[in-house]
């Protein structure tokens, strides 16, 4: 075995990774710029540069850029990145390529709790919490759903059963939500239906701050877990004999993926397919299952894909705006199906 050959091989590989990261970063920057510039009122690049440089909020264009376009774009790319990482975590955890926050009832749990808050009068006592109420209830719903799924998992210790338990949780939450919808007042219902369609529009800067800080912290934690995540690819038994504390690790994975998915669901409604499709796309681009590469990769690609989907949702039938989930499904579903047919899918 020639040692220099291996050294060379590793060098070539990391060069390719670096190139891809730079490429993705550039594409992300471009898509962010396009997202901000293009819309019902087009803003030129020089105009955008002036508005940002002078922090201009007084003109119409300045108002549009600072109060509408930038918050929406940031929300979309953060939301996309978080959902994609949440999906990646769940795919590694369940060693199953077709799971995502949607499949396991996390999104449905969040939706249920949000529907309780939005459609009933239960929330009246918590006026102090009002700005964060959707976020808190979505997180609570996500964790409640996952707790039930994990409680079942502790009894059965079988991944497939856990998956089915997650699916059943989803159906159950959906059923309760439907009942609430049936009894809801017309005025409240309209708001809820709009939220449920999913959109990254109308976020306040305070909400984006929360999303950025907490989500960012969790992404750092997830990256720190990339070593046990890699070990986990060999299965629980091997991971355990390599030194992974399975119980602690399980807790962190669930905590992080629920937090990420719950947060995004709270602000943007249930967004489908990003968590499922983006990790696969990243694997195919980087040709690796190494989570130290995949985690930053899914962050970038999730942001790019969701940013573009949001752009299409705004522009395709402008001025009518399409629900973001319909666009992500148009992208995601064919990708997943073609992956399955080619049998190139692996975790």
């Amino acid at each position: 075995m020639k040692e220099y050959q291996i050294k060379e091989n590793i060098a070539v590989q990391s060069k390719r990774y670096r190139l891809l990261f730079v490429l993705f970063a550039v594409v992300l920057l471009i898509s962010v710029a396009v997202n901000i510039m293009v819309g019902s009122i087009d803003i030129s690049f020089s105009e955008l540069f002036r508005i940002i440089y002078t922090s201009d909020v007084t003109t119409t264009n300045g108002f549009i850029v600072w109060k509408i376009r930038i918050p929406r774009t940031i929300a979309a790319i953060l939301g996309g990145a978080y959902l994609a990482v949440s999906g990646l975590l769940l795919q590694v955890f369940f060693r199953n390529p077709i799971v995502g926050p949607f499949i396991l009832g996390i999104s449905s749990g969040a939706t249920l709790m949000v529907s309780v808050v939005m459609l009933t009068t239960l929330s009246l006592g918590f006026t102090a919490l009002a700005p964060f109420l959707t976020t808190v209830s979505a997180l609570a719903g996500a964790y409640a759903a996952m707790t039930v799924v994990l409680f079942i998992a502790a009894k059965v210790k079988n991944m497939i059963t856990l998956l089915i338990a997650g699916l059943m949780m989803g159906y159950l939450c959906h059923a309760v939500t439907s009942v609430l919808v049936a009894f809801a007042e017309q005025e409240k219902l309209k708001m809820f239906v709009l939220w449920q369609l999913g959109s990254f529009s109308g976020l306040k800067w305070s909400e984006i701050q929360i999303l950025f800080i907490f989500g960012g912290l969790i992404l750092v934690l997830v990256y720190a877990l990339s070593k046990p995540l890699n070990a986990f690819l060999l299965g629980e038994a091997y991971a355990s004999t390599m030194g992974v504390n399975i119980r602690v690790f399980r807790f962190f994975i669930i905590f992080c993926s629920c937090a990420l998915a719950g947060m995004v669901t709270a602000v943007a409604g249930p967004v489908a397919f990003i968590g499922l499709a983006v990790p696969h796309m990243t694997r195919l681009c980087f040709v690796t299952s190494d989570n130290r590469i995949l985690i930053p990769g899914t962050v970038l690609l999730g942001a790019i894909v969701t940013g573009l989907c949001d752009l299409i949702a705004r522009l395709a039938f402008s001025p009518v705006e399409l629900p973001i989930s319909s666009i992500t499904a148009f992208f995601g579903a064919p990708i997943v199906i073609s992956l399955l047919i080619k049998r190139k899918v692996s975790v």
Partner: protein
Amino acid sequence: MSGPGTNTITGTGTIMRTKDLSVGYNKKTVLSLVDLAFEKGKFISLLGPNGAGKTTLLRTMAGLLPPCNGSVLIDQISLNKFKQDHLARILSVVLTDRVSPGLFSVFEFVALGRYPHTGLLGRLKKADKKVVITSLSQVHAQDLVFRQIETLSDGEKQKVLIARALAQEPRLILLDEPTIHLDLKHRMEVMSILQNLCRERGITVVASMHDVDIAAKISDQVILIKDGGIVAWGPPEDTLNKKSVAALYDFEGATFNPNLGSIEIKCNGHRGSVFVVGGIGCGTVFYRLLAKRGFAVSTGVLHTNDLDYYVAISLGAKCITRLPLEKITRDQINEALPLVKQADYVIDAGFPVSELNQMNTELIRYALAQGKLVFTLRKEKDVKRFLQTDSENLIICENEVSLIDKMDSYP
């Protein structure tokens, strides 16, 4: 870590022992009262029928299952007192679980085994890379280093799994059925790799096995497991014999012979009976061929240190014998004559004739006198010289298989 052959560690002392151990799933005990000691640098095989609890015992020893009762001790310290990453530097495993980690090169995959030795993000230092390469060369898989894991054959994958276990730099490796699903070449290769790990690296190897004959030839110790307990354990030379192996697997149609180190499938004799005049190893091929084709075999007169004797006994043939180095006399011939008379056919295996077995030619002449067909491997000129006969019933054949085929074609 050192290359092959640079330091030979002889097994001294015990690395792992079990005390009053009971193992099982969900408090349902599969195997109880296990008191074993595993010596350093030894190859230890677990043998027993399917479902006896070999895998359960291995998983408990690896700390993957809590014991139902009792304890597993490493260096006198109970397994549950170890921190997980500390244990990972002492013990590693190769399981039968299907491993499909996704898109990894063989190098990256084996490097995952460095887990307990690397920092927070698992970055490989120069020394780690060296261990990965040494581990790969120890399993003769250095050529696979840039291949993708998913493209490997079963045999190659198994070698890479062993390399991954080695990359943990353990003192003890536990393997569950390491040769299952492998072709003959890889089966032998994997076994010799494991044996080298014991001999050259002083690693203790504990493996559950399904091939008794391979286990007998390779292990320092065997542990026989059956009916929820340890039936016997010790060196295979003491532990494995016709009786213990038959009892372990509830054999009826086959026999394990420790002298041959192999399992012979008994003949049931529904096609008629054949008497083979054999000796000096010439009869062995015929015994196996006849047993395979369904003939009942009787043979004689054999010395009891003859290869023919061991094979004939294992196959359940009737056997007339003489002590080693003693001349065969009229007494043994008289014993054999009734068997020759009962036989449908007689085979002369073409044994070299000497003073000791001269009398065996008598059996052939007797058979011819009885009007029986005798099939012989001898050349025509030798027939006259050794058998002193020119009977038409003596049929000369070229080799063993054509002899049996010719015999089969007679009614």
